[in-house]
């Protein structure tokens, strides 16, 4: 009986591992690969997706306490941007770009500032009161505040 009990243990651990891995893997899709950061003095703790969308489409230009909000995008080729755009704006990046091009030429609006790297984003957010941006999930953010996306 001692042999059979050992196989049972091995099976259980294997099953558990499989389950854990799959859970982990699945959680890897659910878990965003970006995080949203704001200026350190920003009082906001969380933001919902709809509001985020509005901010990044420049439809909402002020924080709740009426200070100006300065959104900043990663450059168009970035994966993180792609993730962010898919997730928050539920559109493709090219659709958003097209929207902004039309807005530029028609003179209606100016698109959010575009920066090339996470580090530049972080630097900008830290140095610009009211700024809001997104970086890859594990990028260092320094004194920038991370807020939750709901």
């Amino acid at each position, binding site marked *: 009986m001692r042999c059979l009990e050992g196989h049972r243990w091995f099976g259980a651990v294997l099953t558990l591992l499989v389950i854990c891995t799959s859970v982990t893997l699945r959680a890897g899709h659910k878990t965003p690969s970006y995080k949203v950061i704001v200026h350190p003095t920003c009082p906001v703790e969380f933001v919902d997706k709809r509001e985020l969308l509005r901010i990044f489409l420049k439809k909402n230009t002020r924080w709740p306490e009426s200070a100006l909000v300065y959104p900043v995008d990663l450059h168009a080729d970035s994966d993180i941007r792609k993730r962010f755009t898919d997730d928050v704006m539920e559109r493709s990046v090219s659709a958003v770009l097209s929207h902004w091009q039309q807005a*530029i*030429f*028609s003179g209606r609006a100016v698109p959010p500032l575009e920066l090339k790297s996470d580090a530049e984003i972080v630097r900008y957010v830290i140095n610009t009161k009211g700024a809001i941006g997104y970086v890859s999930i594990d990028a260092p953010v320094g004194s920038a505040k991370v807020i939750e996306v709901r």
Partner: protein
Amino acid sequence: MFHHWSLRQRLWSILGLTFFGLLAMVITDRITTEHLNRELAAVEQGYVPLLKYGPELEAAFNKLSRSMLDAVSAQDPDALSETRLLRDEIIEMLGNAPPAVDSENIERLTVEFISWSDKAYRLSVEMLQGHSGERLVKSIKDMQEAKQASWGLLKRTVFLDESALARAFGNARGAQQTAAETRIIFCLILFLVIAALMLIMGHRVLQAFSELLIGFARFGKGDFSKPVLIQGEDELAELGFGANQMAYHIDELQNNLKQANKELESFSYSVSHDLRAPLRGIDGFSQALLEDYENSLDETGQHYLHRVRAAAQRMGELIDDLLALSRTGRASVTRTHVDISTLAARVAKQMDDSDPSRKVQWVITEGIHANADQRLLTVVLENLLGNAWKFTKKKPHAQIEFGKHSDAEGEAYFVRDNGAGFDMTYADKLFGAFQRLHRDTEFEGTGIGLATVSRIIRKHGGRIWAEGQPEHGATFFFTLNHAEEIS
């Protein structure tokens, strides 16, 4: 001043005033019409082209913007280069702006446009090259600012300013209104002035004519004592003056005539009276000689005395006729209803009785009446019928007619005979006193009868004339008063 002008001058002045008034009106009308036309031309030339230009230019601007966007969207640098052509076309369009657009505005617009199109171009290049960051944001903002400036200027300068257009039309309408009002006022003033002048002149003329009418009515009645009163210095005043002169002369003539007639009558009367006495003596004593000294006188002597008596008797006749003539001159005409036919018949009978040996055929139309002096008319008939009787003496079948004759000129009484007649060339001598167209040896007579008849006829306001042919008889026509004959 108008009063001192002659009628002719006044008429000409009114005519001249009318002419120049109308001329002035036409000129001012033309001026206002010109003004109106200018306003309308300004609208036509200035504003109408803008109807198209503004929208066309705006469309071109939009097309350029669109083209650059499309080039960026499609990531096509060649397409972006092509937009430069569009830009140049637009610059040309700006150069060909219609005159209604202020040239300064066009210059500014061109500058702004170039600024924007260059910035947009550079931005497009940057976007194609994938620029990003703060610099790109600045480029975007610059371009957008320039766009706002140029689009705004475009809207303000090359589009039809409706208020300006409305103003222009308002001006045109105002000009038209002014023209119409001016015309009316002008006409009114002209009419009033001319009417006033014509009334003044007309009043003068009518007044003068009225005065003349009254004056001539008086003259017609024979009253030349009061003059016609027309004051002033114009033709009417001259007319009045002339009328008064005429009246004065006629008055003088009348007086002279009256005087002459009076003298003539008294002369005739006294002469005939004074002539009778010696005549009575001549006749009387001749007769006495013939009766008492018949035996002492031989045939020749008696013949001579017969001749003396005949001559004396003839002279007596002459004197009687003269007296009759003068009496008819003094006599007045008392008109009554006279049956001329009966009168003529009576005279005819008298003739027949005076010489029963003669057989004269009398043709007297019956039922002829007239309004005349019976006594004087008798004298007329006695003379005319007596003459007819006399001058048909030599004709075996004498015919004497009396009747009434009508022709185109009117009605007249006539006495016609088929006797000796007369030569028409001496017709005007017929009615003169002592005028005879036949020798005394042919037909006796004093030559006064017809003068008397003529005078009586004239007193009745009628006229007498005769037609005749030698040896073919004569017809004597007379009227008694053209207006008042009754048959």
